């Protein structure tokens, strides 16, 4: 396992960490196979294919088939990493994910590539801002939304180690390596406190975690101490960390996902039934207009400035 301390600055495409880890796992365990839908390039699996040609199964442009084939491979003793654009992997194959993978508890690892609005100008058909909501409601599948290369690697390793269905939501958008102590550990179901703070809490996952940290930095300059919690594990979710965040009295959630059914909803489900506190849910309101990923995030207020302003709003400042 690479030490988080070795990370440098700059922006990373988490697909690189995904395929690097998968190639390493594939070399050590020949049960590991990859299943794709004409998506070798977009999943960056060319290297895996060259190393293990027989273990790369391209079923063509056929996502329902792809997920079902993944379940069949699992039945035959393989550890199937099923990899494609998240919008099609989840949306097109939703019933296969539900019946063949989650309900059947098949040992399938669904890797949703270029999730969120990474496909920008290609529009709502290619955006994947509903995937966490759809899969989270099934309960019987682990849902992970890593925020940087290190966490992506941990997710892929944890998925390979456990027996059962997992969905990993992988972005292609550049993210920085998050600052972490050298002994940082990743555990499914555990939230990660990246910054302590008591005036309010920002709960984020995926590409929004770095923006949440930036917001907390800006708030600190104004004398507001905001906790930043990385909610990579969406299912199971860390109730304890959420209830502790609620103790601060104000929670802003931020996700590159619809405001309906994702992180904000998951947090609200827990907070509202235990220790209600003031909340603001940041995300996308629905189908997005034309624009680049960066433009759309600005357009919907998924910026450090708006995260900070939202927490100020909750605090009445």
């Amino acid at each position, binding site marked *: 396992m690479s030490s988080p301390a070795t990370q440098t600055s700059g922006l990373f495409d988490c697909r690189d960490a995904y395929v690097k880890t998968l190639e390493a796992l594939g070399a050590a365990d020949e049960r590991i196979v990859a299943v794709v839908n*004409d998506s070798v390039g977009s999943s960056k699996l060319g290297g895996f294919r060259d190393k293990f040609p027989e273990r790369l199964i391209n079923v063509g442009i056929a996502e329902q088939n792809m997920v079902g084939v993944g379940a069949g491979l699992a039945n035959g003793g393989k550890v199937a990493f099923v990899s494609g654009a998240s919008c099609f992997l989840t949306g097109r194959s939703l019933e296969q994910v539900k019946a063949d993978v989650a309900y059947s508890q098949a040992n399938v690892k669904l890797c949703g590539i270029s999730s969120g609005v990474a*496909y920008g100008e290609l529009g709502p058909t290619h955006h994947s801002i509903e995937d966490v909501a759809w899969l989270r409601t099934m309960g019987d599948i682990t849902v992970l939304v890593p925020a940087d290369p290190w966490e992506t690697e941990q997710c892929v390793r944890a998925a390979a180690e456990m027996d059962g269905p997992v969905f990993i939501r992988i972005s292609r958008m550049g993210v920085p390596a998050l600052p972490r102590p050298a002994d940082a550990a990743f555990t499914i179901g555990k939230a990660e406190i990246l910054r302590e703070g008591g005036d309010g809490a920002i709960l984020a996952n995926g590409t929004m975690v770095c923006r949440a940290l930036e917001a907390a930095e800006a708030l600190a300059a104004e004398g507001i101490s905001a906790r930043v919690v990385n909610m990579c594990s969406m299912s199971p979710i860390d109730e304890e960390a959420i209830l502790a965040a609620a103790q601060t009295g104000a929670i802003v959630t931020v996700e590159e996902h619809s405001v309906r059914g994702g992180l904000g909803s998951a947090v609200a489900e827990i907070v509202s039934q235990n220790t209600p506190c003031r909340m603001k849910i940041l995300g996308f309101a629905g189908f997005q207009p034309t624009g680049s990923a960066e433009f759309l995030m600005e*357009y919907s207020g998924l910026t450090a400035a708006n995260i900070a302003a939202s927490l100020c709003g909750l605090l009445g400042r």
Partner: protein
Amino acid sequence: MPESRPRSGQTLAERAAFVREQARWIRKRALRMVFDARQGHPGGDLSATDALAALYFDAMRYDPADPRWVARDRFILSKGHATGALYSTLALAGFFPQEELTTYMQPLSRLNGHPNRNKIPGVETNTGPLGHGMPVAVGIAIAAQIDKADYRTFIITGDGELQEGSNWEAAMTAGHRKLSSLTLIVDRNRLQQGAGTEDTVGLDPLDDKFRAFGWDVVEVDGHDIEALLPLLDGSTPHERPLCIIANTVKGKGISFMENKASWHHGVPNAEQYEQAMKELDA
């Protein structure tokens, strides 16, 4: 509106010459859109252009001033990524101003990377995920059958796209119900996103597959306008749904793009763009 089409009173050669000129304009405009936007799908734009031009500038009945005219012929671009060609065609046909093509994929533009019927007049259904056009077209054709209406429905699918099972479910329904108002054009350029169709998941023999599903099948050179027109203009009656396997060249008309998977969503640099425009003008 239909009377204004140049078809009436013209020879097949004259009609084809007219369509060919529209196709040249569409190719150039589509390429400029991709060049300016720095993204798009030029390979699939160029292979589908001749079929699009044949439909909109000869075969189909429509009124750009009344895009949802009930009696219009319907067209669905199931391979929704070919918007460079589709938008150029719709603008040339008068559905929206040609100047708007410069906004392709710009922030808040109507001209998204994949077509949206609620924003762009002339678009029948929103496509982008492959394998959606056929079922919708089948539904339209069933509605026409119920209403005894004489409008026709045309679809263009990619060939790689036919790996999606939904196409075959729809094909089975269409064959079973003898939906003769339905015409499918398969843009058979033999390439998908990453590689050749036959190297990925083979489709051949494609004609036999459609015949087995209850369709009439013809195979043509998809860039031979004179061969396409009689198949599309209603002069070749068919009792069953018609599948036209249009053998095409991905990147057609630009030497360095032709038959190369990398131009599926490649974007030309300035030098390549200049050369491409010269070739399209030749």
